[in-house]
């Protein structure tokens, strides 16, 4: 049975298509709506958490960026964490801050500096207490 399957042409074609797809798709999907995961340990005193940089291809600040938070162990019901994107060269803000409620995702326009630049997701606690906690979710630097 297994031998038959190994030799079958259908499987070979499917495999080839799969490998080809795996090679081609990543270079073209970054402009669409993706969900890159992040896992932050949020600390006090602006010891910010950063993801790896991603290139934002668009020229349009209205092409929204996205951030969602699926889990956070900060004490207190549905909690809030503050996110924004940082530009790689100047380390300056590429978007305004967005307060994200646990379990929700938000789409927002960016500043001009974000376009055609490498950007990373950045986070801090919205409270000025001493808590350190974990925030988990997904983001995308452009969604169209």
């Amino acid at each position, binding site marked *: 049975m297994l031998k038959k399957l190994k030799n079958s042409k259908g499987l070979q074609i499917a495999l080839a298509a799969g490998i080809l797809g795996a090679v081609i798709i990543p270079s073209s999907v970054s402009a669409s709506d993706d969900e890159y995961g992040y896992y932050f340990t949020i600390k*006090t*005193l*602006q010891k910010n958490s950063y993801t790896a940089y991603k290139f934002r291809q668009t020229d349009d600040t209205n092409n929204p960026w996205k951030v969602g938070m699926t889990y956070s162990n*900060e*004490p*207190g*019901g*549905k*909690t*809030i964490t*503050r996110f924004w994107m940082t530009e790689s060269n100047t380390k300056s*803000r590429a978007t*305004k*801050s*967005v*307060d*994200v*409620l646990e379990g929700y995702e*938000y789409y*927002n326009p960016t500043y001009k500096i974000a376009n055609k630049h490498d950007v990373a997701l950045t986070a*801090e*606690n*919205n*409270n*000025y*207490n*001493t*808590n350190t906690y974990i925030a988990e979710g997904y983001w995308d630097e452009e969604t169209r």
Partner: protein
Amino acid sequence: MKSNILRFCKDKKSISIFWFIILLPCLDLVLVKAQWELGLNPNLSFVLAGMSAGHIPQILLFWFLPIYTLILCSDSYIQDVKTGVNNLIISRKGKRAYLLNNFYSSFLIPFLVMFIALLINLILAWIVNSNGHESSGLLEMRNPKNELFSFSQQHPLLINVIFLINVSFFTGLAGLLGLSISMIFPDRKYTYPLAFFIWFILVALPNHTITMVMQPFTEYDYNYVISSWLFNFIILFIITIVAYIYKEKTDEL
């Protein structure tokens, strides 16, 4: 009371701390203005809302509060003990009057200083960002399960004023904490670290942190805010009462 206020006005250290407390919220407003180029909503621009990145002004102001209140006025008792003035006043006016007078002024002076500082900041926020419409999504966020949050969104100015008064109240309690510690250990070497240490424990409590009752527009609902309000109030109140009873029972002369 009058003498304590006079002492506060004449002391250079007290006055410099007074300006420090007045200017720190203004620094926060400058940071907010720089960060939000299109103008942040005036209700969120208030220093207590904590919208500047890193929260440095808030941390400097609220994490070290009893140290400021001690320098403002409540370490006057240590000075009295050093110079022996406390015995003079006690023998003239009675112990209870002297103690109560110290407690009143240690609450009222920090309360008023913080109240003035925050009120100036609130008015400045409304002047500087009067046309501000930007928000981090806090005012538009739909979170119907959190009643305090929904109420804050409907009445943002009212909530800011309530928190303003509440923070001033807790600043007064921080003044009482400083005075209580200085009455039990009338030596600056012990008073300052101990007052800071106790306060910092209150700040660092994960579920009942004192900053929870200082910051409007957070994820914390009534149950969290009220329980941490009671918790912190009771601890500070007990310390004050213990210090008062201790001082009234022991003989100074």
